């Protein structure tokens, strides 16, 4: 479903002082996989996620999503891909603070130009998929607990029914118990709704929930194996 070919990312820090974050990375992920990308901070895993998420262009190399050469496209097409094919979940949730849960979940629908009458049904479906209690739906997002906020963020990522869900340290701001609930939610989405999920973490316990673990260090993939 997605394929990275010789992806490199170099930041120009000044004359003769280039920082290479990714070094000719190659891998392929199939539809329906639940992959954890694990590595210490500074290993290049966040940069890799930004490239897979079509947020950042690589210095060299090609990235194919559904056999489409993503970075040959203009910025507006990248926005369209992010809108329709990719759902993001961030470490710090990134919910709109003064808006209700429902409004937060519906934000991607605004950019997908979904007619208003369809939005309620789609939001309902997404919020039910992450098991958020219905009495919370009208609450403002900053009135929720961390675990609830992250489930709202997941619902937002799901609402356009994207093929790929990208989660960057989704449990990083949560205690281990609520983190467990969020990880179970991902697992459920993968098993029941067959979403492809890429989860980025530095924590081996979190990575253990995935079916496949790719380890990245100093911009290179040093291991890629399936969990049993």
């Amino acid at each position, binding site marked *: 479903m997605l394929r990275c070919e010789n992806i490199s990312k170099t930041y120009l820090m000044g004359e003769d002082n280039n920082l290479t974050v990714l070094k000719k990375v190659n891998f392929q992920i199939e539809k329906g996989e639940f992959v954890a990308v694990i590595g210490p901070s500074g290993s290049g895993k966040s940069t890799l996620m930004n490239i897979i998420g079509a*947020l950042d262009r690589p210095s060299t190399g090609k990235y194919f999503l559904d056999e489409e050469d993503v970075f040959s496209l203009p910025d507006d097409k990248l*926005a369209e891909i*992010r809108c329709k094919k990719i759902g993001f979940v*961030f470490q710090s949730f990134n919910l709109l603070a*003064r808006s209700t849960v429902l409004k937060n979940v519906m934000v991607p629908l605004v950019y997908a*130009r979904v007619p208003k009458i369809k939005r309620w049904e789609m939001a309902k479906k997404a919020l039910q998929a992450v098991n958020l209690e219905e009495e919370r739906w009208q609450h403002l997002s900053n009135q929720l607990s961390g675990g609830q906020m992250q489930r709202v963020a997941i619902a937002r990522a799901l609402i356009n029914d994207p093929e790929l869900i990208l989660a960057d340290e989704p449990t990083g701001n949560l205690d281990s118990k609520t983190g467990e609930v969020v990880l179970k939610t991902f697992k459920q989405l993968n098993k029941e709704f067959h979403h492809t999920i890429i989860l980025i973490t530095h924590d081996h316990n979190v990575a253990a929930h995935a079916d496949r673990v790719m380890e990245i260090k100093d911009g290179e993939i040093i291991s890629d194996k399936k969990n049993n």
Partner: protein
Amino acid sequence: MLITDLFGETFFSLFANKSRSALTILGIIIGIGSVIAMVSVGQGATQNITSRIESLGTNLLVVMPSSQRRAGNLVKGGMGEATTLTTDDAQAIKNSIEGIKAIAPTVSSRKQVTAKGTNTNTSIYGVDENYFSIKMITVDLGSLFSASQINSSSRVAVIGPTTRDDLFGENTDPLGQKIRINSQEFTVIGVTASKGGNSVGSSDDLIYIPLNIAQQYFTGSKSLSNINVEVAAANQMDAVEQEVSDLLLARHKITNTDNADFRIMNQADMLSAMSSVSSTLTYLLGAIAGISLIVGGIGIMNMMLTTVTERTREIGLRKSLGAKNSDISSQFLAESVALTFIGGTIGIIAGWVASYIISALASMTTVVTLNSILLSFGISALIGIVFGYWPAQRAAKLNPIDALRYQ
């Protein structure tokens, strides 16, 4: 982004910063309001001047004596000193020039006037029956001179309302009363309607008596103070002016126009001179008010830049959720246009109210025209776009990754 979403997001975010939005809108209200009010004062002044000049008569040429220079004498006399403009000149103009509707020669001088123990010093105008129609003077009480009264040299007088107040008391009926001017007795037969203004010779404080009597008793000669010529059509004004000038030069045997012992005031020229003064005033007032509008616009830009900085993370998030650059920029542009739209609408109402208050308190004429409303509305929309464009572009060009990391 659907247009309804754009409206929704715009009002949601303006409402989220109520006091900031309100203060920014206030800046635009003051700007637009002062433009409307100032321009209304300027246009009111224009209308006032125009209507006053027109109230003196239409298509009017006034021939006045100028300085007289005798042959071989280099010393010029004072303006109006010449006594060479006579009743014969007036008759000649009337008889030999085409396109004249009416002509009214006058003499005037200031005299002491007494009536039943009161007295006043006022202008005495010697006029004929045509004068009143040319100058559009009507009576409040009694009647104006008839041709037979002029011809029979009747000792009658028509007085202005202020003179009536001075001599007989306010709002009294002086008809049939006697007044004495230089020991000559006249009977009051009419009181003119008030013209209000005091500009350019129109006054309520004067006395009209028949022209031939005035010449006989007060000037002792056939010389005139001026000749009012009403031209039949506006487009003949310049031609008639030229013909009158040529005729008088010939009659007075003057070859060099620089030495002319008369001058001709053209009402149309005066009107355009006065209106150009007052339209300059309008532009000046508008420009001063426009400065506050620019300040208001800078207020909008300031607010939008602050908002963009504050919402950097939100912009990054929206981009990651699929917002295009154009979605982001149109959202911020919509906010600034909404601010100016609201401010502009309230500002027009405020400016209108202010112009009413100005005209009520300062007893000035103010005119709010459709043009000035459309103009300020256009300006306020333009300000929203111009001052919102840069912040909107800045928001749209943010790199989503940097924006998401922004603390």
